[in-house]
């Protein structure tokens, strides 16, 4: 027969041992839960609602997936465009508006044609500034007031007059549930001209317009970038005498829903968006 004491310890815990085990387990589980919570807080996407639209917290994989769809469509539209008009951002004209931010178009701009440009000479439309002037009567009621530096509108155009896509980025700040947030909204509306008449193309899966969109937010304090979202216009020259308002490619930085913002001045690492373009005014 084996010693009794051995059999007792092997058969079960004493109350003290059981309590100790539970306490230790609770501590371990608590620590793990706390660690997991911290680890996955980046993937936790508590949504907020602003102006009737849901914004998820960055980084958001769902929004990232939508962003990929949007930027693939935008790249295609840019590739097929004759002209690309970028409204908003800084330096929309080196002399008349060197610092900006200039006005973008309101998000309800859904025109499919630029009537005034149709009869213009293409040689005089080498800048988005010229396009803004020529189409001023059409744009004027849509131009945003107090634009954010991150706001812009991109129109891709064929044949001077046919708008083939409209892309907007908007940045808004708001206090929601006691938190100061920077909310980004990016939308892309495709226009289909294949039938000869323009059709605003809905999303093939969701059936909604704009064709693609994503919306997310950062904590306002984290919304600091080395290359901030927004448009920057670059110029070759501005020559009124010879009609040479010649704009170079505009650098357009879209907000990236799966990039962590928050520039750390003490770090060599800088947050940068995956979605950066140099868009030429003319292709």
């Amino acid at each position, binding site marked *: 027969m084996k010693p*009794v004491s051995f*059999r*007792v310890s092997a*058969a*079960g*815990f*004493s*109350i003290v*041992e*059981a309590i100790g*085990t*539970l306490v230790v*387990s609770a501590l371990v*589980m608590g620590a*793990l839960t706390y660690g*997991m919570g911290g*680890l*996955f807080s980046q*993937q936790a996407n508590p949504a907020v609602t602003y102006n009737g639209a849901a914004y998820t917290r960055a980084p958001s*994989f769902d929004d*990232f*997936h939508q962003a*990929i769809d949007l*930027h*693939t469509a935008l*790249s295609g539209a840019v*590739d*097929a465009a*004759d*002209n690309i008009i970028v409204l908003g951002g800084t*330096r929309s004209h*080196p002399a008349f508006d060197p610092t900006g931010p200039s006005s973008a178009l309101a998000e309800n701009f859904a025109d499919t044609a630029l009537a005034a440009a149709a009869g213009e*000479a*293409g*040689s005089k*439309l*080498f800048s988005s500034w010229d396009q803004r002037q020529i189409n001023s009567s059409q744009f004027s009621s849509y131009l945003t007031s107090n634009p954010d530096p991150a706001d812009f509108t991109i129109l891709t155009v*064929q*044949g*001077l*007059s*046919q708008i083939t896509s409209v892309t907007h980025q908007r940045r808004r700040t708001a206090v929601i549930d006691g938190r100061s947030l920077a909310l980004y909204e990016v939308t892309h509306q495709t226009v289909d001209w294949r039938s000869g008449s323009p059709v605003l193309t809905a999303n093939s899966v969701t059936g909604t317009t704009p064709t693609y969109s994503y919306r997310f937010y950062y904590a306002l304090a984290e919304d600091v970038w080395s290359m901030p979202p927004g448009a920057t216009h*670059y*110029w*070759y*020259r*501005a*020559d009124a*005498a*010879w*009609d*040479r308002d*010649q704009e*170079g490619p505009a650098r357009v930085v879209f907000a990236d829903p*799966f990039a962590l913002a928050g520039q750390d001045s003490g770090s060599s690492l800088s947050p940068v968006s*995956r979605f950066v373009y140099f868009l*030429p*005014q*003319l*292709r």
Partner: protein
Amino acid sequence: MKTESHLARGRGKRAFRPGSNRGMASFAVLLFAIVSVMILMANFKLNYAVSATSDAYDAFSSQVVEKNGLSQAVKESILAIGETAIANSGGTLQQEIQNRLSSMSFGSNVTVSIDTALPVPSVPANAFYPFGTPPGSSQPSYFSASACTRPVAGMGGLFTSLCMLGPSADLGRLTVTFDRTNSASPEDARTYVVNADLFSVPLTNVDVIAYGLPITGSIPSAAPAVPPGFFGDGVSCLVTTSNNPANDSTAYPDLFASSGGERLPYQYRNAVSFSWNAYEYLWSPTYQNALLGAALIAPNAIYNFSTSFDPSNLQPFPGITVSPTGASVTVDCSAVTGSIVALVDPNGTGSVTITGSPAPGSPFILLVRNTSGVRTPVTFTGSNSRPAIFYLENSSVQFSGAPQIEGALFLDPTTTASGNVTWFGHFSFYGPASPLGTLGITMADTPAVKSALAPLAPRVLLVSTNATR
């Protein structure tokens, strides 16, 4: 025999019962461990999905860059063969593309090659007077075909801004196919198809050009000053100047690389074709001698001030009247019958008077060729309604009585001009030596004149390329 419980009670302790309670604690720990592992795996998969999606998007973006690079290579290859310039390649289009392809860099494991199963076409001739009959031309339209062109929407703003200025000829579309392979990722194999649309555009479609000669002369560092009223309504103009703000006060340093030699951005490629390269060719012996050769063939006319003439025949050609001394010639534009009149003044001893034509008529070319150091005086004494192309080399041009003239006025780098004139059509001059300080000229955009001049005008090959993947 005592049981364990008896023993426990005998020691005054309460035993923790083995069985369900102990199992529940173990199960809880196990469940927590499983959930933790699952969450860790989910997190890993999420990060992997983000990475894979990012890689896929990067691959897509890289391929867009690749195909656009190939588009540019095909365009430059076509221009190397067919551009209106003083030097063209004698190679085939495939050779030219291959040369450029071999100097291009692609990502690791990526190979791009011409698809040899689909032969690379040859570049069609861009014929123009006097080397051949240019193809039929018509005013292009963006969204519908014109008589001689396809719709041009989608061919790019840099292309359409020049080909829409007047009648153009559609030389068709060339297609070149490339195979892209990635040895590390076979699923990334792609076929790039580059479509090149070629148009023949009369140089006279641009109303005003202040040209440069980068090889035989210089380029204008800045655009010439223009007097008030020089540009009439709708007048198109072209000048390609330095991009250095130090040279041209209208330039901005935004994209200017101050180190190394100055390079114009590719945005100016088509403008350079029109305002630099075409004029190198236009004033070259190749073109000028070809015009003289054409003038030797009846019913065209040629008169040389340095050779003896027949005093009994002071009207050797229709519309050409020679003075009794033989030192001056009067051209009556209304009476010229040929396509070209050439007046050769190798010693700078002659003078020319142009009386113009009050009535419209078929276009012709008037060439004043002077290779001496002394300019030939050329005086326009009357208005002209018969479109003509005036090539004036080393001349001293005077407009008398402020005439109104339809046509194209090409001034070479050494020609000077004075007086006042209203010009309907095309005017080009050497940018670094602008005559606008002494010449009072008002330009008017006149589509009818452009159309009339198109059959005789020098032409520029305009290329638009676009690639699909």
